């Protein structure tokens, strides 16, 4: 979706402000939010792309004015209610009022070390890759109202395929809970000038990781 999350190239957000000696979490609830998210993801009730889409669908004013982990918390509440895992009345009450659904698995403490590794998103390919390194490609001018990983600043732009990264779960479909629809993934490199015109820094290059459905020959 053409949402507020798609920030590449926007003006007006000001300087980057690194925090010296930043703690891992700024409050206890941040750590618990991250961990609850991880534990719920482990049960298999949603995909990582569904969770990203959940954040993107927060109202723009909420997105911009909420801290990172607050967005995660709001997204968690939204997803558990949307998927029927808990009721809004239960969250308001702070206690379960009805029994839970039977889920496939539950994360126990002893299993946590094994979950610190990211899962693999590589999948067997259904067809040969359409492009190879060195090919000129144009990104499509798409504007789906649902989740996509093709940022606005890199749509309808000509770039060069730099690398083939394998065949991966396709986020645009996985975010809809409609299976994985694996697609070839490429690193596509753009000249800064192609993206930003005359205002580009001289010699700037920017790459995105682009799924094959985003690309056409140029």
């Amino acid at each position: 979706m053409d949402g507020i999350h798609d920030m590449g190239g926007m003006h007006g957000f000001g300087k980057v402000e690194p925090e010296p000696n930043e703690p891992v979490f700024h409050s206890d609830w941040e750590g618990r939010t991250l961990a609850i998210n991880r534990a719920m993801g482990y049960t298999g009730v949603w995909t990582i792309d569904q969770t990203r889409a959940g954040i993107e669908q927060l109202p723009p004013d909420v997105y911009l004015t909420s801290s990172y982990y607050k967005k995660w918390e709001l997204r968690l509440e939204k997803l558990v209610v949307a998927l029927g895992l808990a009721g809004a009345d239960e969250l308001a009450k702070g206690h379960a009022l009805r029994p839970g659904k039977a889920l496939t698995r539950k994360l126990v403490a002893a299993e946590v070390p094994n979950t610190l590794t990211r899962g693999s998103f590589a999948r067997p390919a259904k067809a040969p890759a359409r492009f190879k390194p060195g090919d000129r490609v144009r990104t499509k001018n798409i504007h789906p109202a649902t989740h996509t990983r093709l940022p606005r600043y890199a749509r309808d732009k000509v770039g060069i395929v730099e690398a083939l990264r394998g065949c991966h779960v396709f986020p645009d479909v996985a975010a809809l809970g409609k299976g994985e629809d694996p697609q070839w993934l490429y690193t596509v490199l753009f000249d800064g000038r192609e993206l930003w015109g005359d205002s580009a820094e001289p010699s700037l290059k920017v790459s995105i990781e682009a799924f094959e459905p985003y690309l056409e020959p140029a």
Partner: protein
Amino acid sequence: MAHDHDHDHDDHGSELSEMQLRVRALETVLTEKGYIDPAAIDVIIEAYETKVGPHIGARVVAKAWSDPAFKRALLEDGSKAVQTLGLLNRVGDHLIAVENTPKLHNMIVCTLCSCYPWEVLGLPPVWYKSAPYRSRAVNDPRGVLGDFGVKLPAGTDIRVWDSTAETRFIVLPMRPAGAEGWSEERLAALVTRDSMIGTGLAKQPSEAA
């Protein structure tokens, strides 16, 4: 990391914040429903506070600075090479190391969310997830570097990697001069988190503690 789910006020007598209350309600409901185990929640938090962090990436960089064969392997297949170091239980797939040189400076961003190589750098800092960084890294990287107090030589080109998929990037910063003959452990102390994101450079030997 004990966490008392039943007490309603903190030890200082002040009120709980809105977020503390919301998270407590959420965790309680999900626990009572049987979906999550608070003991597992504690262990996850402890892992990110004490075990997983940029010290892991620093060891990877120090090894690459010291061992040309490892460096080649790292640039060829980051996941496979890092796995051989035994620093992690298991390294996830699709870790890609990109090398800084006098001619080329790499910078990593996720303009769409917060994708970051957690296994080797830990959780991302707030600035990495912030609107200023995500918006400007792709069109004003030199200005962003200025915000970090970094000025590259005019002859150094910038390459920005937008992490828009499940590939994850770590920058292999340039090894500073003056640390010849240093052990990997001493070299690792020169490798900052920001130097592995591309918003900083490795420390000079004179800056090492």
